[in-house]
């Protein structure tokens, strides 16, 4: 099931073949003094429109337009092919005109963000699944609020046992910060253990000041802290998974308009 999809292998092969054929064609036409920029340009533009249609496909999920996974496969392969066609189209590494520089910059940024996103999509789900427990992104604030309420309750309850507000004070001084909102996001992204270390140190600090009765509540705080750490990891990784399209999609939308402008200018000026 997690094996490589045979169909996508086929598409990879066909695309590689098509791009190869295009590059060969371009080579042979250029050596015949033919103009290839129009052909590669239109193919590239068509491909870009097709790549953009992937987003439209998502909005039209009620219409049977094929599986989104097939679309994604084509989107990824098409995006990679577009890089080659782009290289064939501009011919050099870097265009000279400002308009074309903007276009090329956008194209490369969109490609790079797409590649990054694709990599993240391969890399993060496994980590999310292994880290667990699974949590719907939109529910994280509520879950966090619930944990915080429980943690506060546990810290307060300790006072009922001993008559001292040691744990309550300590919670306000130190642990409240941790339960206030997701913490150590970057560390979670990098897979570090800082939150665990931080939490253990904080809990050890107070442990020696507590009675056995209070320790029951400290134990509860420890459990909640561990759960909160896991929740933070979910939040951090899922945020990244949801954030990269915030770069990719807007840039792609700008790119399309610049590409249309480029198309118009070329038709008016370059013939």
């Amino acid at each position: 099931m997690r094996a490589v999809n045979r169909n996508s292998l086929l598409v990879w092969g066909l695309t590689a073949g098509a791009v190869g054929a295009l590059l060969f064609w371009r080579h042979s036409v250029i050596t015949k003094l033919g103009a290839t920029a129009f052909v590669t340009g239109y193919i590239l533009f068509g491909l870009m429109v097709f790549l953009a249609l992937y987003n439209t496909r998502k909005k039209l999920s009620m219409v049977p337009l094929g599986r989104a996974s097939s679309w994604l496969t084509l989107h990824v392969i098409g995006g990679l092919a577009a890089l080659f066609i782009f290289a064939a189209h501009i011919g050099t590494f870097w265009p000279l005109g400002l308009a074309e520089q903007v276009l090329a910059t956008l194209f490369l940024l969109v490609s790079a963000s797409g590649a990054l996103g694709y990599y993240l999509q391969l890399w993060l789900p496994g980590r999310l699944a292994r880290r667990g427990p699974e949590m719907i992104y939109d529910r994280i604030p509520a879950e966090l609020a619930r944990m915080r309420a429980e943690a506060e309750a546990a810290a307060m309850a300790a006072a009922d046992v001993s008559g001292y507000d040691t744990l309550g004070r300590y919670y306000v001084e130190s642990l409240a910060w941790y339960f206030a909102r997701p913490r150590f996001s970057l560390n979670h992204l990098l897979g570090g253990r800082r939150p665990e270390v931080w939490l253990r140190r904080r809990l050890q600090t107070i442990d020696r000041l507590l009675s056995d009765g209070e320790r029951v509540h400290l134990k509860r705080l420890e459990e909640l802290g561990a759960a909160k750490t896991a929740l933070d990891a979910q939040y951090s990784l899922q945020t990244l998974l949801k954030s990269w399209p915030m770069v990719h999609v807007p840039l792609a939308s700008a790119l399309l308009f610049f590409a249309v402008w480029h198309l118009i200018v070329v038709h008016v000026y370059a013939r």
Partner: protein
Amino acid sequence: MENRDRIRHDRSRYERPTLGWQCGRAAVWGKPCSRGPSATGVCGGTAACLPAKNGDVWQCRRPPAEGGPCASGPDAEGHCGLQQLPCSPRPSLRVWRGRLAFLAAGLAIALIALFASTRSMPSLPVSSLDPGDLSAAHAHFVGEAGCGACHQAHGQGISAWWQAAMGKGTRPLSTACQDCHEFGGKGRLAHNRTFEARADLAATDCLMCHTEHKGGNAPPSALSDAQCQTCHTQRIDSFALDHPPFPPGFPHDHPKGVRFDHASHLGKHFADPRLADQLPPGGCTGCHQIATAARAIQPAGFDATCAGCHADSITRRDFVLFRWPELASAGVSAANIAKACGFSKEKKDKTEAALAKASFSAISLDTLTPLQAFLLNALADDPAEYGPAVQDLAKLAISDGADPLVELIEDRMGKSASSKLLAGLNSEQVRQAFCAWSANEEYAPAGTSGLSGWKADALDLRYARPSHADPVLRAWFDAVAALPMPADPDEADLLKEARDDLLSPANSPGLCTKCHTTTDTKEGTKQVSWSHTLGQARALTRFDHQPHINLLGPDKSCTNCHKLATTAAVAGGSSFTPVAVSGCADCHAAGRLRDDCLLCHAYHQDHALKKGMMANGN
């Protein structure tokens, strides 16, 4: 089990990511309310539940997920007893993404529109039309016209753009090139002139090879070998290995304007100790001026080089225009001669006696020169035929001087030529000469002159003591060589004979054609090459001696390539052994010096800039 509760149908929240709004409390990590923001992002309200009336009593309907019915319960009017502060909902990440996408699209359009509205680029430092800098060469010429110099639709509004995009109403970009550039031949024909007869070849286009807007340092003329190899399909990956051999005799096989036998001069004459003081000093560079070296290295000219030995051989060869021939009888009466020539009585009588039929003995024993025969249109060796013609001429000349001769030359050789041909001719002397000749006497001019120029003397009218590059003589050579063949075969024979005689290398007047070569023209005439180097040789090939000399040094470097042939017979009649590809490829090879096509080959024939271009200020 908290894990189970999380998925219980009545305990867990109904997640609707389709809505795109998030409770404002959740956004600051507080507890979101169960009634959530509406689809339009309005807070779900301050009540925790919507109480229901059962009988007369209002009942709390707080969902189990929120803890079930609350302790306070609804009031008597059915308002929820658990009021909470309203929040300001926040859009979800996806909504933000959509907004950003719209923003980016709007920004793109705005930027394009803002920077496209400028008509001429220099007025704004940035433009959304900016295609990159022009090459330095073109950048200087677009001037006021700006982009419009080449791109017609530039700044012409939407309709012009539309037409341009549709390919209507505007001329192709390639024709704009030819506003300034012209060639020896059709601009859009492969190699301009080379394929003039090939109507089957498709038109070429400037843009096939030339690209602009690649920056100041990237002239459109920079081309790649691959572009040449489009048509020249014999693969040449390396000049050293793949270039076809040069023609036999190359590069000395080209047609030469001046015959010069390097072998005999260098091998024989220059070695002669007697001539040592007359030689140009310094070997090759004694004659060839390396200071002006280009494709050819011109010799310094006759006076500086050849004259030392050969000046005399020119002046010795006079040009005889008219020679009084042998006549059977006198054609003009003595009385008429005497009258026309103003003879004295004594002289008249003497003439009468000399011309008397019985005693007439022709003063001249010569026949006509071939040129004379052509001019008079009569056989040179038949006095019966040419006699009347000569006598008719004489009849007029004795009174009108050179005029009849001028008329005759103009008649036979064209009107315009005569002034050059007969420059400096003394009409009176001609009249007097004819008077003498008609009187069957030799003409003896009054006083002798050693100067060059026209003179009548004895039985000849001659151009004496010609100098090198003499204009009159050159005019005669040019005029006769350029005469078209007459239709009449007899007449043609006469011209041919006259021409061959005049252009004969062995004994032409001034011995011009001994060195200056003649060539056949397409029209069937001939042409004398007065200059040393003939321009049209290998029009698509270029070579520059200068860098080679600069690099190799002026002294012995000539013989690095130009080696005197040891055997006499070298193809092309040259005294040098041919230069081979390997000779060039010693240096011009990958990793050493340039070895691309364009180093030695040109695509266009006689590329030039149109004169109007500068004047128009374009």
